[in-house]
């Protein structure tokens, strides 16, 4: 057991920190995931790739870093520490790429993996639908085989980055008559195809972090099926497992910068903070626990290359901590809390989405109950 950076890690971290200080444009600091400043964000993403700070967990054969999860963790921590935005290609890197590695044909791997790494392809995800939240078996976006193309019609929601994306990992219903989970097909869809329309989806914050995607007679070559026709559910499970793999570090990084602001706010308003000290410390402690647990769960990933279910645990606890933290901060504002302070008010509203996006807390609890505690299914 060694709970501090090794010499190599410490050096890597120090070099990275210096690199960020030099390269991060001031306009991007603290931007979070908010839309805007797209050209700058693209530039920043390419700079990260060029400097070798992208794809460290990918196998070397696809141009990745060969699975250095510990270093990946350091990158996510340091980016968060600097309040720097993530790479725009996060869905390609964290979800589409790993899924293509597992289920893709040689052609598919050749066509996409390298380009994802080099930030030449931005990806988005088309899983959720208005009538099917967490329940993939209720997907209604149709894919009908016509000769050697699938004709796709339907609507997806909650798709981040869709307005920027070149490609989409899309779960479709190819056989409505098949048994539940058997009629799904997983497609790689070119977002520049005719018939694809992206509309921003406004959230309660007033911002639009997500999009709706409408597909009208979109033609997708049959060669773009990932896995088997009718095997979309299995492929989608691989994606979801990877969604929460290194998510832990990104999440705790976000929380870390929030907690630092909360502590500064409390230090600047000592009297107002007095009644909430225990609660403030509780969130700091929770953050340390989440960081440590993210490191602890790396063991599994390093050993098997497949993420364990710890990601669900971290996402669960993180989302609730994030919500409590913003509420606490607003308590410290005193009577001005009825006004929009532009920071914590936004965060408080945005944090309500934390227990919904990337798996609702209810679904995550089901997953932990079934896969970790081996309790009988609740459905």
């Amino acid at each position, binding site marked *: *057991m060694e709970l*501090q950076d090794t010499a190599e890690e410490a050096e890597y971290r120090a070099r990275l920190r210096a690199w960020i200080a030099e390269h991060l444009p001031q306009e991007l600091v603290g931007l979070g995931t908010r839309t805007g400043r797209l050209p700058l964000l693209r530039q920043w993403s390419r700079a990260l790739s060029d400097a070798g700070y992208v794809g460290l967990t990918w196998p070397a054969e696809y141009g990745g870093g060969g699975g250095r999860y510990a270093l990946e963790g350091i990158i996510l921590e340091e980016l968060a520490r600097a309040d720097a935005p993530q790479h725009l290609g996060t869905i390609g890197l964290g979800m589409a790429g790993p899924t293509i590695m597992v289920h893709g044909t040689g052609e598919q791997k050749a066509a996409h993996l390298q380009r994802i790494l080099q930030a030449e392809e931005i990806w988005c995800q088309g899983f959720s639908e208005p009538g099917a939240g967490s329940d993939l078996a209720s997907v209604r976006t149709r894919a009908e085989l016509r000769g050697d193309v699938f004709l796709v019609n339907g609507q997806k929601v909650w798709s981040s980055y869709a307005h920027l994306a070149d490609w989409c990992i899309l779960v479709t219903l190819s056989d409505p008559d098949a048994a539940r989970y058997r009629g799904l097909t997983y497609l790689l869809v070119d977002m520049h195809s005719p018939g694809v329309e992206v509309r921003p989806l406004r959230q309660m914050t007033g911002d639009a972090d997500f999009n709706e995607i409408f597909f009208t007679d979109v033609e997708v070559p049959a060669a773009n099926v990932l896995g088997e026709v009718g095997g979309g559910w299995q492929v989608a499970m691989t994606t979801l497992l990877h969604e929460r793999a290194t998510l832990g570090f990104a999440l705790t990084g976000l929380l870390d910068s929030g907690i630092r602001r909360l502590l500064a706010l409390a230090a600047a308003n000592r009297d107002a903070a007095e009644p909430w000290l225990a609660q403030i*410390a509780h969130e700091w402690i929770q953050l*340390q626990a989440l*960081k440590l647990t993210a490191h*602890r769960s790396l063991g599994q990933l390093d050993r098997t290359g497949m993420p364990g279910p710890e990601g669900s645990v971290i996402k669960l606890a993180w989302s609730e901590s994030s919500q409590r933290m913003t509420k606490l901060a607003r308590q410290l504002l005193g009577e001005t809390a009825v006004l929009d302070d532009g920071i914590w008010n936004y965060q408080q509203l945005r944090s309500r989405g934390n227990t919904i996006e990337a798996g609702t807390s209810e679904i995550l609890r089901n997953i932990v*109950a079934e896969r970790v505690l081996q309790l009988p299914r609740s459905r």
Partner: protein
Amino acid sequence: MDFRFSEEQDELRQQARAFLDRRLPAAALGQMADSEPGWDPSTWQEIAELGWLGVSTAEELGGAGLGYLEEAILIEEFGRRLYSGPYLASVGLALPAIPQGQLGELAMGRVRWSLCDSETLRLVPNLMDVDQVVVVERDQVYSVPAAGQPLTSIDATRRMGRLELGPDRELLATGAEAAELALRLRRRKLSALALEAVGLAQQVLEWGVEHARAREQFEKKIGSYQAVSHPLVNSFVEIELARSLAYWAAWLLAGGHEDQLAAPAAYAAAAEAAVNTCERVIQVHGGMGFTWDSPLHRYYKRSLWIQHFGGPPDLHRTQVARQLMLSSEAGPPASQSAPGLRTIARTTR
């Protein structure tokens, strides 16, 4: 960064678990707790022979020459089975104050120790089961022979006594040295309680899951009801987070790292995780969980004992917050944060 225990450490844990399963099966717990001494003194010699009383004692003094991380594993496992002998008292609480020359006697199982850090009331765990007591006062630390009256603990597996101070004292530290030792004893106490709480909570959660898998109501296993499974998941999450903190605090102590935050943080999280888990699992067991015959109430009482012996978690949190705010005024508290950030601060300074 590497969060894994070594193979030797994993073996030690397995060994401890096997020993406890054999010598203190859960089924025997009630009988033991209700017996006259409250524990089986014959286990002490066995523990000594297994080397578990001299884990961190140097080899030349008759110990194994290992460290607190190994002791941490044993404290957690003893907690898992509510061991009622003075292991926590001797190794978890008193050890850092015991004079080198007497560590061999402890290691051989000849002298048992406890700690008195209760200035006015002089409450001492296992007072009637030990020979010597380390007494912590504002400006001095000394040891006295164990003597006094038994008191009724809320936990029959962790008995208490009120220490009577006789004239026979051995001074262990004074002045700044005493203050430093007191601080070390306090960190260790909180860390040890956190480990015990994690061990205890893990056992109780396992029983809760087992019951939820087996018991049927309304023609379904109760584990398939979210009103049962989700609280168990919440306990799993709390325990996993508390475990990370408890190992972190133990690692910092074992390595002699300066830190005043990890131990109270781990204690607050683990004590609450233990109490919450016991309460949830009693609820999951329904009426059965409420009976005297179930081992659950023993665990619940221990979890409450831990929470009261260590002091209200929220008061520790308040102290943690005060320290963090001090650092925050002087910039981000990087040097006191978990892994990554903490370490780099050190490396780059």
